[in-house]
C-alpha cells in the first residue's frame, strides 16, 4: 500500500530513517565511550583497573538484580510501580522490533525479517504501555515526593517515548486520517530514536553504565573483596 503522498513517506522512511539510525547508533556508542572515558579511579575512588574481577562480579550482580522484575528489595517494596516500569520498558523495547508491520518493511526492503508477534499481541502490548504511562503520570501528580522533583522535561520525555505507540495505534485502527497518523508515527519514532543519545532517554545505555559502576564500587571497594561477599540489592 503506497500512500498518495509518496514522496514525503519515501523521504521519511528512506534517508531520514537512515540518518536517524546513524545518529542513534553513533550517539549511544559515544555516550558509553564518553562515560567510560570519564571514569577516574582516583576521583571515583574505585580501582577499576585493579581487582577488576571483583568489580565485574559486582557489576553483573548489580545490573541483573535490577533487570529482574521484583529482583531487588526496592522493586519488591513497590509492586505496582515495579509492574508498571517493567511492562512499560518491555513493551517499549519489544513491540517495535517484533511488530509484523515493521518486519514486513524489512522484508520489502532487504528481503529478511525477524520473528514476529501477532497483531493482537502487539495491540495488548501497546495498551499495556499506554496504561503504564498513564499510571506513571498520575503517580507523578499524586505522590508529593515525586511531584517535588518532577519537571516539565520528565513529561516531555514520557511523551517522546509513548508518542510512537499512540500514533501507531491510531494509524492501525484508522480512526481518522490514516496518512496523517502514519506520517506522525514515523516522525515520532524517529524523534524518539534521535532523542535517546541526547536526553535522559540515554538511560537506554547509561542505566547499564551507572549500575555497573556502582556494582564495581561495592564489588571492589565497599566490601566485595571481604571473603568475596556480594551485596544483595
Amino acid at each position, binding site marked *: 500500500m503506497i500512500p498518495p503522498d509518496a514522496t514525503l513517506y519515501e523521504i521519511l522512511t528512506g534517508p531520514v530513517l537512515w540518518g536517524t539510525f546513524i545518529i542513534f547508533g553513533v550517539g549511544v556508542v559515544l555516550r558509553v565511550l*564518553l*562515560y*567510560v*572515558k*570519564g*571514569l*577516574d*579511579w*582516583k*576521583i*571515583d*575512588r*574505585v*580501582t577499576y583497573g*585493579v*581487582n577488576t574481577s571483583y568489580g565485574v562480579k559486582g557489576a553483573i550482580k*548489580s545490573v541483573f538484580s*535490577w533487570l529482574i522484575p521484583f529482583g531487588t*528489595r*526496592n*522493586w519488591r*517494596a*513497590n509492586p505496582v*510501580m515495579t509492574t508498571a*516500569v517493567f511492562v512499560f520498558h518491555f513493551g517499549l523495547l519489544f513491540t517495535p522490533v517484533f511488530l509484523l508491520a515493521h518486519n514486513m518493511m524489512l522484508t520489502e526492503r532487504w528481503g529478511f525479517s525477524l520473528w514476529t508477534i501477532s497483531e493482537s499481541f502487539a495491540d495488548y502490548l501497546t495498551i499495556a504501555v499506554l496504561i503504564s504511562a498513564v499510571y506513571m503520570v498520575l503517580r507523578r501528580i499524586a*505522590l*508529593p*515526593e*515525586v*511531584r*517535588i*522533583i*518532577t*519537571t516539565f522535561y*520528565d513529561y516531555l*520525555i514520557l511523551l517522546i517515548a509513548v508518542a510512537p505507540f499512540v500514533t501507531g495505534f491510531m494509524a492501525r485502527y484508522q480512526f481518522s486520517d490514516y496518512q496523517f497518523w502514519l506520517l506522525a508515527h514515523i516522525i515520532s519514532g524517529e524523534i524518539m530514536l534521535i532523542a535517546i543519545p541526547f536526553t*535522559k532517554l*540515554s*538511560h537506554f545505555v*547509561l*542505566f547499564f*553504565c*551507572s*549500575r*555497573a*559502576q*556502582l*556494582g564495581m*564500587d561495592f564489588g*571492589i*571497594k*565497599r*566490601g*566485595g*573483596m*571481604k*571473603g568475596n*561477599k556480594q*551485596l*544483595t540489592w
Partner: protein
Amino acid sequence: MPQGILCNNRPVNSKERIMELMGDAGGKKYYKEMETLDVSHDDLGALIKKTCKSRIRTWLEICNHCGLCADSCFFYLTNNKDPKQTPSYKIQSTLGELVRRKGKVDAAFMINAMDTAWGKCTCCNRCGLYCPHGIDMGAMFSYLRGLLFSQGFVPYELKIGSGMHRVYRGQMDVTTEDWVDTCEWMADEYGVDYPGLEIPIDKPNADIIYTLNAREPKFYPEDVAEMAILFQMAGENWTVPSVGWEETSLTMFAGDWEGCKMQVETVYDAIERLKPKRMVVTECGHAYRGTVVEGPYYAGLESGKTPIETLHYVEWVAEALREGKIKIDPAKKIKEPVTIQDACNYVRNGGLEKCTREIASYLCEEVIEMEPHGEHAFCCGGGGGLNGLARYGPERKIGFKNKRDQVLATGCKFVLTPCHNCWDAIRDMEEAYHIGIKWSFLKPLLIKAAIMPDHMKLKEE
C-alpha cells in the same frame, strides 16, 4: 565581607587558629560571618570542571525523578515524609544546581547546600541501594561536602575537626606525649588486676599494629586498657605506634580532601616504619571507612588497599573467638535478648555484617535483629559527622525516631554498638526518648564474659 576572620576558605593549619575558632563558643560569630562569605565563582567552577566527571554527571542527568529513593532515607521517614527530604530532591537542589550553574551561586545558596549536605544527610549511602539507576546520593553528598569545604562553607565543629587533623594528626588535641602517657598510665593502673599487662609502643615487626580513635585516649582511656587486656588474653604479638595511631578522619566528614590524605598517610607511615603484619582498627565505623576503605585512595595507592591487611575490630574479635584465642565462659553469656546496631561504614560500605553475628553467637544467648539490618540497615542517626554538629541538633533528634522505633520493635533492651558514632547516637537517642535501653561496645562485654587464661590470672598470695 570577602573572607571572614573565623569563617573563610582557608583550611586551619595552626594551633592558634584552632584556639581562635574554639573561642567562638557554638560558632555564633563563625556562622554570622558565613552569611556574607564570598563565593569564588572561578575557583568553584574550575574545581567542578576538574572533579565532576562522568560518574556524578551521569547520576545527575539520568535521575528520572521517580522518587523511589524516598522511603530509603530515614530523614524522609522521620520528617513525616516531607518531600523536601527525598534524597533526589536534596541532591538535585544542591549539587545538581551547583553543577548546572557551573559554580555561579551566592552565599545563601551555599549555606542551604551546607545545611542539606550535613543536616539532612549522613552519607549513609542507603539510598544508593534503592535507586533503580544505581545513583548513590550519599556518595554525591560527600562530594558536595568537598566543594563546600573548598569555599569555607563547612559546619563550625568540622572546620575545627579538620584543623585538628591537620595540626595534631588526630581528631582531638592529643599529642604524642599525651598518647604515650595514657598508654603507660593504663598499663600501670590495669596491671594491678591483670598482672604483666603491657601496651607495647613502637615495637617493630609485630603481628598486629593497633590504631584507634582519639576519643579513646582523650575521654575513655579504659578503652585503651581493654584493648590491651584482650590482645594479651589472646596472646597476640601486637603494638601501637607512638605516631600514626589515629584511625579516624573528621577530614572525611568535613570534605577536606587534602586533610584526608595528610591524616591517612600518617597511619601508613607508621606501618612503613614498624613493619607489622596486619593492622587492627578499633570499634569505629568512620575510622575504618576513612583509613581502610577510602584511605588508600586518599593516599593514591593504586592497589586500592591498605599497605598491609587490615581488620576491623569485629573481624579480629570474630577470628579470635573462632580460633579459640579468646574463650567465652558459657555461664557468663549475656542472657537478655540483644540487638545489633550495624554501622553503615563497615557493614553496608565494608561488607562486615557477618562478623558481628558471629561474635554475638559466642557472646549472647539470644539475638533479635532489627528490621532491616545488615547491608540494608538504617543509619543510627548520627553518622557522617552529624553527632558533633550543634547546628543540626534538632534534625538529629527527629532522625533518631527511626532507630528508636526499630529498637523498640525488637523488644530488646540491650543494643550492641561496635562503633563510636553509633554508640553516641544510641546514647543520645536514649537521652532524648527514654526507652530504657543499654548499649555497649564489645570490649567490656568480652572481658566480662571471657575465661581468663592462666597467664593473666592474679597469683594467689
